[in-house]
C-alpha cells in the first residue's frame, strides 16, 4: 500500500497526545485571537495580484468595463453603486501596474438615452466575461480579485434586472469569451486620440 502523508487528524488511530489543560487554553486563546483578527489584516496577508501572461487581458477588460459601469450608475443616479464600482476600478488598476489604461486612453460613450436595459447589458457583459475569466486565470491572487469583482457585479446585475423589470438570474450565466465581450465593450468606449483616417 503506497504511503500517503495525510494530516494527523485524518488518521484514525488513537495517540497519546500529551496535551495539558493549560496548553488547550493557550491554544483556545490563540484561535480566538485569530477569529477576532480584523478582516483587513487577513486580507493584507494575501499576496498582491500579479497577473501572469494573458491574465492581464481579463484584468484590463474588467478595468475598462467597470469604468463604463461606474459611469452608467452615476448617470442613473445610484451614487452608492457608482462608488462601489469606482473602488473596484482602483483595485484592478493597481493590479495592472504600469500596463494600466491611462485616463486619456478612452472616453466612455454611453447611449444618450439611458434606459435600465443598458445597465442590464453592461452588467451581463461583466458577469458573463468574469465567469469565463475564473477558469483561465493563472495567478491565484488575480483569480481571487476577479472572483470578488464578479460577486459585486452579480449583485449589481440583480439590481439592474429589477430596475428593468426582469426576473433575477438563476444559476451561473453562460461564459462570454473575450472576443465577443471585447466587441460589446467597444460599443461603450471611444478613443479620442485615435487616428481618424
Amino acid at each position, binding site marked *: 500500500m503506497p504511503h500517503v502523508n495525510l494530516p494527523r487528524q485524518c488518521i484514525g488511530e488513537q495517540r497519546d497526545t500529551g496535551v495539558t489543560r493549560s496548553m488547550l487554553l493557550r491554544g483556545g486563546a490563540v484561535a480566538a485571537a485569530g477569529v477576532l483578527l480584523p478582516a483587513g489584516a487577513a486580507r493584507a496577508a494575501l499576496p498582491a495580484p500579479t497577473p501572469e*501572461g*494573458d491574465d*492581464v*487581458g*481579463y484584468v*484590463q*477588460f474588467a478595468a*475598462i*468595463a467597470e469604468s463604463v459601469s461606474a459611469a452608467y450608475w452615476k448617470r442613473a443616479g445610484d451614487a452608492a453603486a457608482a462608488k462601489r464600482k469606482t473602488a473596484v476600478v482602483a483595485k484592478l488598476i493597481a493590479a495592472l501596474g504600469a*500596463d494600466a*489604461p*491611462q485616463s*486619456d*486612453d*478612452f472616453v466612455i460613450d454611453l447611449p444618450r438615452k439611458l434606459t435600465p436595459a443598458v445597465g442590464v447589458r453592461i452588467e451581463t457583459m461583466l458577469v458573463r466575461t468574469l465567469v469565463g475569466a475564473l477558469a*483561465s486565470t493563472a495567478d491565484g491572487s488575480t483569480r481571487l480579485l476577479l472572483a470578488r469583482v464578479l460577486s459585486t457585479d452579480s449583485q449589481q446585475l440583480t439590481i439592474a434586472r429589477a430596475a428593468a423589470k426582469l426576473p433575477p438570474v438563476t444559476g451561473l450565466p453562460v461564459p462570454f469569451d*473575450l*472576443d465577443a465581450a*471585447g*466587441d460589446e*465593450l*467597444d460599443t461603450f*468606449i*471611444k*478613443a479620442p*486620440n*485615435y*487616428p*481618424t*483616417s
Partner: protein
Amino acid sequence: MRTRNLLLAASATVALAAAAPAAATAAPTVYAAASLNNAFPALDGAPKYNFAGSNTLQTQIERGAPADVFASASPTEAQALFNEGRCTRPVTFATNILVVVVPKANPAGVKSVYSLRGSGKRIAIGTAGVPIGNYTRLLLRRLHLSSILQTNTISQEKDVTSVLTKVALGSADAGFVYHTDALSTRGRTIEIRVPKWAQPAVRYQICAVKRPGADTAEAEAYIKKVVGGAGRTILKRYGFGLPPRG
C-alpha cells in the same frame, strides 16, 4: 562694362554656392522612429534623417551619435535619455494604434486578429525591445492571444518597416504594425483593425539631444515645427492621432 558685369555675376554665383553648404549644415540631424519615415520628411525636407527602431536609436545616441533631435515611438526611450541627462524633457506629439496587416491576396484567410489562433500561419512582429514589438506583445496579452506566438511561425523584425515589408512581399501571412504604416502600403496590403479596449497607448515623444556640439537652436526650432500647427496638420494627413494641445 560687360566684362565687369560678368565678373560680378560670377562672383555672386560663387558666393551663393559657398553659402549653400553653410545653410545645409544649419539643418538638424533628426533620429526618428521608423514609423515616422514618411511624415517627417514631408514636414521638413532639410534635416538629415536617420530612421530606425527607437531602441536602436537610443543606443546610438548613448554612444555619442551626432543626433540633434530624437523622436521615439514610445515614451520609454526618450524618457531614458532624459533621465540620463542626454536630452531635454520629452513632449508627446502624436499617437497611433496597432493594426494587423495581411497581404492583399490574403492567402491565409485572416479576417480578424482572432483568426490568428490555431497554427500554421507565418506572422511577422517586432522584436522585444523595439516599441512595435513591445506594444504587440502587450496587445496579445490583453486579447488573451499570446499563444499565437507559440503555435505559428513567427519572424521577429528589427523595426516596423521590416514587418510591413515582409507582409507586403507576401513572406508573412500577417503582421502587427501601426495604422500609419498600413496606410503607406494600401493597395498591397489589407488593414484589419483590432479592438479599441485592448489597444496599448502608443505615444510618440520628441526631445532635443544634449551633447557637445549639438545644434540646440535648430533642434528646438524643428521640435517647435513638429508640435505646432504645421506639424499637427502633416501628422494628421499621414494618419497619426494627435494629443490635446499642450
